[in-house]
C-alpha cells in the first residue's frame, strides 16, 4: 500500500531557535523515485528543513507525513500526540540520512559501522549483516577498505562509507545534508558519483541539500530554492538553474557560479 502513497509530504513546517525564525511555514512534497535538490544560501533553513523531515529536529508547527503516517506523532481524535523516542526510531529507520560531517562511528571499522544498525534494529544475523556490508562497500567502490577505521580514510571515502551505512537499512528515502560541503574539492566528485549511481539505479527517492549546481542540473528531477526560511521558487532544474524567475535566485546563482 505504501507504494501508492507519496514518501514525504510536509505542510506548514515552522521552526525557531529563540527569537530567530528559521523556517516560516514550508510545504514540501517528494514523489516516489524522485530526486529533489534543495539550494539556498547558508542560514536559509534548508538543513533545518531536512532535519525536521526525520524528526531530528521537532518542528514548532506544521506536520510531516512519511508514507502516509505523521512523523513523530500519533493522531488521536483531532490532536497529534508526540511519540516516545523509541517509536520515532521505527519511522527513522526507513529514512537514510547522510551528514555534512560524515559522523561515522570512529571506534568501529567501516564494516562495523555498516553492520551496527541492521544488527541492532533489524535484528539481522551477524553473517547476513557482514555480507550486506561487503556488498555495499563494493557498490561505493571501497571493497578494499572494509576493515579500516574511519580515521584512516579520506573525507571522500568516509562519506561513501556513510552512504553505505545509511543504505544498509534499506531505506525508501535518502536525505543528504550538504554531503560534499566538508570535502576537499578533488574528493567531491567521488561522492557525487555514488549519489548519481544511486539516483540512476535504485529508483531511490532522494532529497539533497547541496551547493553543487552541476549535480543538481544533471541529476535532480526538481529543484527548490530556499531563502530566509521560505521556498522562493521550485521547478525543473533547467528552469530554476538556467532561467530563474526570482531575483533572489538569480543573485544566489551568480554568486555561486562566479
Amino acid at each position, binding site marked *: 500500500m505504501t507504494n501508492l502513497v507519496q514518501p514525504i509530504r510536509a505542510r506548514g513546517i515552522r521552526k525557531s531557535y529563540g527569537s530567530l525564525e528559521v523556517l516560516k511555514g514550508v510545504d514540501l512534497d517528494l514523489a516516489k523515485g524522485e530526486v529533489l535538490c534543495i539550494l539556498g544560501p547558508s542560514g536559509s533553513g534548508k538543513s533545518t528543513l531536512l532535519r525536521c523531515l526525520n524528526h531530528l529536529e521537532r518542528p514548532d508547527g506544521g506536520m510531516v507525513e512519511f508514507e502516509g503516517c505523521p512523523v513523530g506523532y500519533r493522531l488521536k481524535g483531532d490532536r497529534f500526540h508526540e511519540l516516545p523516542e523509541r517509536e520515532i526510531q521505527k519511522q527513522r*529507520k526507513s529514512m537514510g540520512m547522510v551528514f555534512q560531517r560524515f559522523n561515522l562511528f570512529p*571506534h568501529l571499522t567501516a564494516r562495523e559501522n555498516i553492520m551496527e544498525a541492521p544488527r541492532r534494529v533489524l535484528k539481522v544475523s551477524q553473517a547476513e549483516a557482514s555480507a550486506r556490508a561487503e556488498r555495499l562497500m563494493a557498490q561505493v567502490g571501497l571493497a578494499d577498505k572494509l576493515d579500516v*577505521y574511519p580515521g584512516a580514510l579520506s573525507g571522500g571515502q568516509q562519506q561513501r562509507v556513510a552512504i553505505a551505512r545509511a543504505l544498509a537499512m534499506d531505506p525508501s528515502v535518502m536525505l543528504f545534508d550538504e554531503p560534499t560541503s566538508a570535502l576537499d574539492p578533488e574528493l567531491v566528485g567521488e561522492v557525487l558519483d555514488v549519489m548519481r549511481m544511486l539516483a540512476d539505479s535504485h529508483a531511490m527517492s532522494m532529497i539533497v541539500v547541496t551547493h553543487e549546481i552541476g549535480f543538481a542540473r544533471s541529476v535532480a528531477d526538481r529543484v527548490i530554492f530556499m531563502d530566509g526560511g521560505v521556498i522562493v521558487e521550485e521547478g525543473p532544474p533547467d528552469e530554476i538553474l538556467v532561467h530563474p524567475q526570482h531575483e533572489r535566485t538569480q543573485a544566489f546563482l551568480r554568486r555561486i557560479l562566479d
Partner: protein
Amino acid sequence: MGSSSHLSDAELASARLMPRRRPLTWAAAGILLIVLAEAAYSVVTNPGFGWPVVGEHIFSPQVLAGLVMTLTLTVVSMTLALVLGIVLAVSAASKNPVLSTAAHGYIWIFRAIPLLVQIIFWYNLAALYPKLGIGLPFMPSFVEFDTNSVITAMIAAIVAMSLNEAAYMAEIVRSGLNSVDNGQREASRALGISPLDTFMRIVMPQAMRVIIPPTGNETLSMLKYTSLVSVIALPELLYSTQLIASRTFEVIPMLLVASLWYLIVSTVLMLIQVAIERRLARSVVR
C-alpha cells in the same frame, strides 16, 4: 641565484648529519644516580628500617587478610561507584527536571561531606534508625530488620565509599559524555538505533577514552582511602599492619610492609589502566 655558500650541490645532498649534543641530560643523570645510590645505601644499611622484620611479616596471614580486605573494598566500591556514577551523569544531563535536580543534589551533598564523616555515619545508622524495613511510604513495613545486623562494618564501609565515590565518578562520566560529538548521537538516531543502544554502543565506548584516565586516578585514591575504614575497626591493610606494630613496637618496618603492598597493587592497577587505554586506542590512526 647568488649563492653565498662554497659547498657544492653534491656536498649538500650528501651531508653527514650529527645529532645535537645533550650535556645537561648527562649531568642530570649523573646527579640522580648519585642521589639514588646514597639513598639505596642508607636504606640497606640503616638498621632502623628493619628489613628482617619486613620479610617476616610481609606474607603473614594477618597482613594478607588485610590486603584482601583492602582489595575487596576497592574493587567492590569502585565498581558500584562506576555504575551509580553513570546513572547519576545520565540523570544530571536528562531533560527530566526532577531527575536532573535530584542528581545534582546528590553530587552536591556527597562531595561536600568528608568521606570520614560518611563512613562513621553509615556505621552508626542504627542510632538514627534502629529498624530497617521494606514497605510502602508512611505504611507499616512488610519485613523489618535490626539495623545493626544489616549494616555491618563491611557494609557500612562499602556503602559509604561507593556512594561518596559515585558523586566524583558522575562528574568524570559527565565530562566523558560531553566529549562525544553530538553528530554521533544524531547519526545513531537517524539510523533508527534505540536510545539505549545509542548510549551503550555508540556514545559510551567513545566516552571511555576520556573517562578511563581520571578513573584510574580515582581507583588509586580509593585504594589508599580504604585505610579510613580503620575508624570503624575494619582490619584493612594499613590497620592490620598497625595492629602488629602496636604489639611489637616495630612501627617503621610495619609501615614498610603496608607501603610495599600499596606499591605492588598500585603498579598492577596502573598496568591494567595502560592495557585498557591501549585497547581503546585501537581505532586511532598513528
